């Protein structure tokens, strides 16, 4: 790869960890295309993502999505400098499709391949320039690399809060190409999964997030109080002596509490106050997510927070995160929604960072890893 290519490499990214087949193409930090084919509609009648259905859809969507992405970006495979693919974490069978496709692309084109961590890629979109060609959306003063102003211009003290149907995590990013730490995560359901399950309990359909968010606006969040998982002192401990789950979340107890609440109304023969339950549930989720995230930021010197994942679309989550971040002196960045949900552009964006940082490619012998840790940015 010559030096111009290393300054602004043309990278194609492939994502297939859940129900979106994504192919994105970036040049350095410039987004050329973000093409996504979703199997979400096929999961509606099941009330949640069915891994086998998602995997079947990835197989059929991959080549058409690739073709569309190349056309939209106006580039050919011969122009590409490197390929990047999500190799984990995610659904094993779904990951397998993207990884095998990416390896075949690498064999057929002879281009280097990077096996990338999906969670870190969610942070990578924060490095893409805005549509008007301006700087990447991080508002804070970025750390400039004089040798290569494009590369890794992340703010110092950066954290990321990722909330989606597949994950709920708080990360600390010291260096996006090699030093990422998991501060906390859900120990059972992801937040988005809890939304889907509760939406089903309340008969609101799938996906649950938008349905509950909409209905919650008409309900009284204070009418019922639902538990905040892992908030008791035995789990929290203190800043000096942290408990076992100080920055972790749990949503399975909350789901059970909602089910019990609905049953009690029904047993008494009363109308179930669906809007109030939706509002109270949403408040419980958003309250515990934001309070623990902000706590983790304060105690780890994080002053810049990126909010990513599909649940970043939730109005109440955005509102409360903004509010709590600003009172804690944390600057919050929320990328455009199309880049928050799972997509190939984020994989390409992180791939470009790896190329620019001179990280060696992964080769084609790696295995997808459905529980890939964030400490592994690329395999």
């Amino acid at each position, binding site marked *: 790869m010559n030096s111009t290519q290393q300054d602004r490499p043309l990278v194609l990214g492939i994502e297939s960890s859940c129900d979106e087949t994504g192919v994105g193409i970036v040049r350095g930090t410039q987004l050329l295309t973000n093409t996504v084919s979703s199997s979400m509609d096929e999961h509606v009648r099941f009330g949640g993502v069915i891994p086998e259905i998602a995997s*079947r859809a990835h197989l059929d969507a991959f080549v058409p999505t690739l073709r569309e992405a190349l056309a939209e970006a106006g580039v050919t495979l011969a122009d590409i400098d490197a390929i990047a693919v999500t190799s984990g974490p995610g659904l094993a069978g779904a990951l397998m499709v993207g990884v095998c496709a990416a*390896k075949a692309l690498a064999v057929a084109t002879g281009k280097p391949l990077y096996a990338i961590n999906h969670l870190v890629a969610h942070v990578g979109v924060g490095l893409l320039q805005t549509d008007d060609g301006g700087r990447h959306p991080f508002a804070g003063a970025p750390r400039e690399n004089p040798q290569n102003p494009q590369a890794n211009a992340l703010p110092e003290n950066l954290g990321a809060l990722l909330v989606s149907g597949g994950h709920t995590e708080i990360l600390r990013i010291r260096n996006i190409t090699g030093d990422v730490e998991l501060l906390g995560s859900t120990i059972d359901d992801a937040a988005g999964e809890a939304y889907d399950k509760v939406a089903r309990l309340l*008969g609101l359909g799938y996906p649950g997030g938008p349905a509950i968010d909409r209905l919650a606006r008409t309900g009284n969040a204070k009418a019922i109080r639902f538990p905040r998982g892992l908030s008791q002192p035995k789990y929290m401990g203190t800043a000096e002596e942290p408990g076992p789950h100080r920055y972790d979340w749990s949503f399975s107890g909350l789901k059970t509490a909602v089910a019990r609440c609905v049953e009690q109304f029904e047993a008494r023969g009363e109308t179930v106050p669906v809007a109030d339950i939706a509002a109270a549930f949403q408040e419980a989720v958003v309250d515990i997510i934001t309070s623990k995230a902000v706590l983790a930021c304060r105690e780890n010197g994080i002053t810049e927070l990126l909010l990513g994942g599909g649940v970043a679309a939730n109005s109440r989550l955005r509102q409360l995160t903004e509010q709590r971040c600003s009172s804690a002196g944390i600057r919050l960045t929320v990328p455009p929604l199309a880049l928050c949900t799972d997509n190939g552009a984020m994989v390409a964006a992180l791939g470009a960072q790896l190329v620019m940082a001179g990280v060696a490619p992964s080769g084609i012998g790696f295995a997808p890893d459905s529980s890939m840790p964030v400490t592994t940015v690329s395999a």
Partner: protein
Amino acid sequence: MLILAIDTSAVASAALVSDDTPESLVGSFATEDTRSHAEVLAPGIEALLAEAGLSGADVDAVVTGVGPGPFTGLRSGIVTARTLSFVWGIPLYGLMSLDAIALEVAESTDAAPEFIVATDARRKEVYWARYALSSGQLPQLLDGPHVGFAADLPDLPVYGAGAGLYADVVKAVPEFRDRQPEALSLGQFALARLAAGERLLDSTPLYLRESDAQVPGPRKRAL
């Protein structure tokens, strides 16, 4: 005509076959195990081409086994084949994976005129198909592929790893009791059928089973 054949319906395998070569064989590989497709397939194909001193530009068509076989493994080969065919801009054909073993049966010494090929479908079932042989002809698929219990198979000699697993209830042919579908035979079968002017399948996977997903029933109301 140079064909790259891929099959991952059981083990992971790939082969380069050509009608310009004795026995059609340019190169081939197959794994022993049925669980490492994602790791070994692409490096295996890359090595096949390198060892033969060939590149993608030399390949005229890609052939993929379309199953039946365990889903995740099966897809790894099909998506690889689809992607290679797309990038190289060459035709892609599908072949039923059990055909690979059927061709080997036809080439063996005392093949029965009518027989079953069976592979492991897990969950105590087999994937199977029924074939007929007449001398000098390619094996003819009479029935299948199906998925079901070995004990329910027609009363015919059974070839393949599915027979070996259930030798207590089927007429397993000993020399074939561990045999898995492999790309080499599949590629040879494809060459022969194309030469005979036959049409091949497209690359649609033969899953034979639904996704297992249950549509949740209405929630029970508390009374």
